[in-house]
């Protein structure tokens, strides 16, 4: 495949019919959370889109994000994007290794300087550059070097977007997010642990289709996927509104599918598309499977005070504090009360009899 080919040409060369292409566009629109009426425009845009060069850097990560994407890779429509982008460097997926791999990266940077897309997964250690290196180059240096020539950066997964689990307290490696280090490039955060696969591919397709980054929220997340909370789109929401809650994982409420808020669900403060897009090809999502949302697409989700504790709950034992406080208050109250009584007794003692001769003011 030549890099100069348009996407439409590339697909047709693979023997994909126009019908197939339209179906791809319909699925793409759905994936990008765009209305179906946009399909013709998407088709027209994709037809002419050119395959961009993509460099994928993996730092302190678990490969879960790549797994998420490739789990549904080859046979799916979204998998097709790997045929239509030029993934020039991805050290998990690429065939080349060692010096050849690094050379591929350098070549890609050189040939597409200012135009390539940089995808990052994993957080970057800053406490000691030696904590994570690739081919002897520290993550920080590599990120800065590759970011320099990138048109835009996609931070895939909560680690790259917000620091994620490596950044969790006490953060021994000094892990930071991409946006902590790179300030002069457009960054799209696609958080999640891992992110929903179609969200990753949807963001890439958006860039491919429109040649621009999608509309982002205050945390640089595409609004199309992160615009509404899990809670707002949750099918169990009516139970929350009615005040019907599961109190345990096996109680009557759980069996009846009631709201999991009391089991620590972070749905109300978590912005992601799980409740509509769902996982495993639209099969289900955690709440549908009876487990509260962990809030994995939010910053510091690991440090939120416990997965099974709602966000508004006290983190420490307040009941014991209350008992001590009442005890201390009572003791202080009795002490102060005794002082008051002494003062009053003193006043009573100091009382001089008031007679009819004492009513006028003297001097």
């Amino acid at each position, binding site marked *: 495949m030549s890099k100069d080919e348009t996407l439409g040409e590339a697909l047709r060369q693979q023997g994909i019919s126009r*019908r197939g292409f339209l179906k791809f566009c319909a*699925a793409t629109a*759905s994936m990008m959370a765009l209305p179906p009426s946009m399909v013709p425009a998407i088709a027209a845009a994709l037809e002419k889109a050119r395959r961009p060069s993509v460099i994928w850097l993996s730092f302190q990560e678990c490969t879960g994000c790549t797994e998420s994407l490739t789990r549904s890779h080859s046979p799916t429509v979204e998998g097709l994007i790997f045929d239509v982008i030029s993934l020039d460097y991805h050290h998990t997926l690429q065939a080349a290794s060692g010096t050849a791999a690094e050379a591929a990266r350098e070549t890609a940077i050189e040939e597409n300087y200012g135009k390539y897309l940089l995808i990052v997964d994993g957080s970057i250690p800053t406490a000691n550059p030696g904590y994570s290196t690739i081919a002897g180059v520290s993550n920080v240096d590599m990120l800065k070097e590759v970011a320099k020539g990138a048109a835009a950066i996609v931070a895939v997964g909560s680690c790259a977007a917000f620091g994620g689990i490596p950044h969790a307290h006490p953060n021994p490696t000094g892990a930071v997010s991409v946006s902590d280090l790179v300030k002069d490039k457009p960054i799209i955060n696609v958080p999640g642990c891992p992110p929903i696969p179609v969200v990753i591919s949807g963001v890439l397709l958006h860039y491919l289709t429109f040649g621009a980054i999608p509309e982002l929220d205050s945390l640089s997340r595409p609004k199309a996927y992160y615009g509404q909370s899990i809670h707002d*789109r949750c099918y169990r929401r009516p139970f929350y509104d009615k005040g019907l809650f599961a109190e345990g994982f096996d109680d009557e409420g759980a069996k009846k599918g009631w709201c999991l808020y009391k089991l620590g669900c972070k749905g109300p403060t978590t912005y992601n598309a799980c409740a509509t*897009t769902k996982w495993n090809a*639209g099969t289900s999502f955690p709440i*549908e499977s009876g487990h509260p949302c962990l809030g994995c697409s939010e910053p510091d989700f690991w440090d939120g005070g416990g997965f099974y504790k709602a966000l508004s709950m006290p983190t420490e034992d307040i009941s014991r504090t209350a008992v001590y406080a009442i005890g201390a208050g009572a003791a202080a109250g009795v002490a102060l009360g005794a002082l008051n009584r002494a003062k009053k007794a003193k006043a009573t003692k100091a009382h001089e009899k008031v007679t009819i001769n004492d009513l006028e003011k003297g001097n």
Partner: protein
Amino acid sequence: MPCVTDTASLPAGAGENLTHNVQPLLHEIRHALAKLLEDGDGTVIDLRSLPLAPGEEQKLLDELDQGEVTAQIQALGPTEIIETRYPGVWVVVHFNNDNEVVGKFIEVCHIPALLCSQQEDIREGLERLSHHLLEATT
């Protein structure tokens, strides 16, 4: 044969009609049908962009039921197209090669665009046929 409906992970009836989105959807379809009759404009509803409780989607599909036409397309995996018992209302489900659902739509139109042979494909088909005939004669 792929299954059109999601499998509900909850006991039957548990979440039924939970979001109360089925009825509004049917009304939306009714409006779309009226518009189709009036000025010929079609409507497409993406079922995967709506919050539906387990069982609700099935309920909607049960409401719509099956009509006269059932069609299958094989392009980048199968696509199933069913005309419901309301002519002009179609259910279109796209699968990938692994029979996983990649898109699910309700189309209100005379015929889903995808069923029509496409200009490019016809042109290519014509070329192929001409080529074939040419080969046969030579």
